[in-house]
């Protein structure tokens, strides 16, 4: 869709202003139903569109536009934990209501410099704490395929917005599945890049050792194209990687012939919903028919990953949310929602005197074993294929008073974050009652390129992006 839109804009079949207006109109008519956006920046988006229209008007060499602005005029929306200069940024929490960042996150700036137009800010679980989108102080986002169900989280608005064509790229973050979960429940595609592949600068921190900055799109190609813009070293983030950024689109259609795809048996247990396992089996068969060899592998410590994740992540949250003192910005700490309070409490407990060794240190040791499992697997296979969610999306409100049950939804996505490896979530099929199912393709550190290749091969076969929700 990026490619097609760019073509329409540069061939002047359509102006950026017309394009942006049509998206704003669509958001206007659908956002009340979906609650995907917290802020819609009509004025800023129109102003930016005009600016780009003037630019193209004065540019005779269109190749120049294509080269310098790979996202020329592309309407994007950012998860509301991305700092956006002069656009309110709330982290979907009352504690930050009214906060106007004085600067852009690096990922926002890079998209802007590439020609993107920001339509607004997307709903999410407050501070990205959640797998359902229900922890937003601005109300839950609805699943476009069934308004009574959750769309996945924490990047809930990102998944719903892409599924409903409210923008072309929706940014998000994935600390323990927060991009892959909504992608799998909304028939969309998400990349959780390698840790450090995209700068975390200006993104409101959740768990600093696993926060990954990615996005949701309708197609694998769009996903790859946008990552080419956001990836790369940033002097403002010391953990961002200096390893070179490849051209993710180059060779994306090469197929999977001769590739080895590993199926971790711990991800296909009885604990995973039968329909989700079935959809994954169909995908496995498809890859086999495309010439890949399927290899069964074991990631022996998978069953401990969730406990590790739910110690490490709240520990880092308790530290990161310590900066909310109500003095320099934001309201006082009583304004945190219930989930942020719970996680701050768990983290504070795990790091407190007398408990540190039993919880935090123990978790970081088991984390080493989980990473070793992945290392061994990638000696044998090119990528790993597994379901994203163990369950189909629950009804909104169904499990809000059961934190542990919500945490268990992260069981198949958290391990990639602990290991820092990249993972691509792609549509795999639909359940008998018409809800989307996704699978994830995990790869070795900095091997996003292979993930896009593998994801593209499936997308070309299934063409699930054509199946849109009835809104």
């Amino acid at each position, binding site marked *: 869709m990026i490619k097609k839109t760019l073509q329409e804009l540069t061939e002047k079949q359509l102006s950026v202003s017309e394009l942006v207006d049509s998206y704003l109109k669509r958001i206007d008519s659908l956002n009340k139903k979906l609650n995907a956006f917290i802020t819609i920046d009509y004025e800023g988006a129109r102003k930016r569109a005009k600016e780009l229209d003037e630019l193209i008007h004065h540019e005779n060499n269109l190749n120049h536009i294509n080269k310098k602005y790979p996202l020329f005029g592309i309407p994007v929306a950012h998860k509301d934990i991305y700092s956006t200069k002069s656009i309110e940024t709330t982290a979907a929490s009352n504690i930050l209501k009214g906060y106007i960042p*004085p600067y852009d996150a690096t990922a926002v700036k890079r998209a802007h410099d590439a020609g993107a137009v920001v339509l607004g800010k997307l709903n999410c679980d407050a501070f990205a704490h959640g797998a359902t989108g229900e922890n937003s102080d601005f109300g839950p986002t609805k699943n476009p395929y069934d308004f009574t169900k959750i769309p996945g989280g924490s990047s809930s608005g990102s998944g719903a917005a892409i599924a409903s064509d409210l923008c072309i790229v929706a940014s998000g973050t994935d600390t323990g599945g927060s991009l892959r979960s909504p992608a799998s429940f909304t028939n969309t595609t998400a990349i959780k890049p390698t840790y450090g592949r995209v700068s975390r600068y200006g993104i409101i921190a959740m768990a600093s050792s696993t926060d990954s900055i990615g996005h949701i799109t309708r197609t694998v190609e769009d996903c790859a194209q946008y990552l080419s813009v956001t990836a790369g070293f940033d002097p403002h983030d010391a953990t961002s990687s200096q390893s070179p950024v490849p051209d993710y689109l180059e060779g994306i259609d090469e197929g999977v012939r001769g590739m080895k795809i590993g199926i971790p048996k711990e991800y296909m247990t009885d604990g995973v919903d039968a329909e989700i396992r079935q959809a994954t089996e169909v995908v496995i068969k498809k890859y086999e028919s495309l010439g890949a060899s399927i290899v069964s592998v074991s990631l022996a410590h998978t069953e401990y990953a969730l*406990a590790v994740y739910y110690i490490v992540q709240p520990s880092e949250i308790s530290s990161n949310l310590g900066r909310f003192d*109500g003095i320099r910005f934001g309201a006082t700490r009583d304004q945190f929602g219930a989930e942020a*309070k719970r996680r701050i409490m768990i983290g504070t407990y795990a790091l407190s005197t007398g408990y540190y060794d039993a*919880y935090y*240190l123990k978790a*970081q040791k088991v984390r080493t074993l989980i990473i070793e499992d992945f290392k061994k697997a990638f000696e044998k296979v090119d990528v790993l294929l597994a379901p994203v969610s163990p369950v189909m999306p629950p009804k909104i409100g169904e499990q809000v008073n059961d*934190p542990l049950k919500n945490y268990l939804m992260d069981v198949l996505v958290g391990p990639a974050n602990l290991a820092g490896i990249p993972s691509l979530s792609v549509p795999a099929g639909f359940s008998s009652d018409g809800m989307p199912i996704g699978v994830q393709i995990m790869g070795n550190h900095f091997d996003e390129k292979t993930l896009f290749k593998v994801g593209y091969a499936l997308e070309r076969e299934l063409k699930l992006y054509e199946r849109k929700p009835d809104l």
Partner: protein
Amino acid sequence: MKTTKTSLTPEEVKRIARLARLPLSQEEIERFTPQLSEVLNYFNKLNEVDTSSVKPTYQSISDENRFQEQKLEADTLSTEEVLKNAKEKKDGYVLTEQVIK
């Protein structure tokens, strides 16, 4: 396999809240006590794993420490921009309550 049962008391929850500077209502303390106990109990699963000869991981990407030259950047924020979101300020400073007696 060692299994220990973790059960927090409302007093412990209050103590943790104080450490975390979180003002909790009585209702929140009562609601969080069983919820947090259940989560902490789940963590005891890790006792099954022998980690006596395992080193902890603090970062998943094996990058080395990186040092940055200290220099003033041209695009740094102005004092006005930095203080824009503070509720109380005076003469380019943030005002707070007195913390040292």
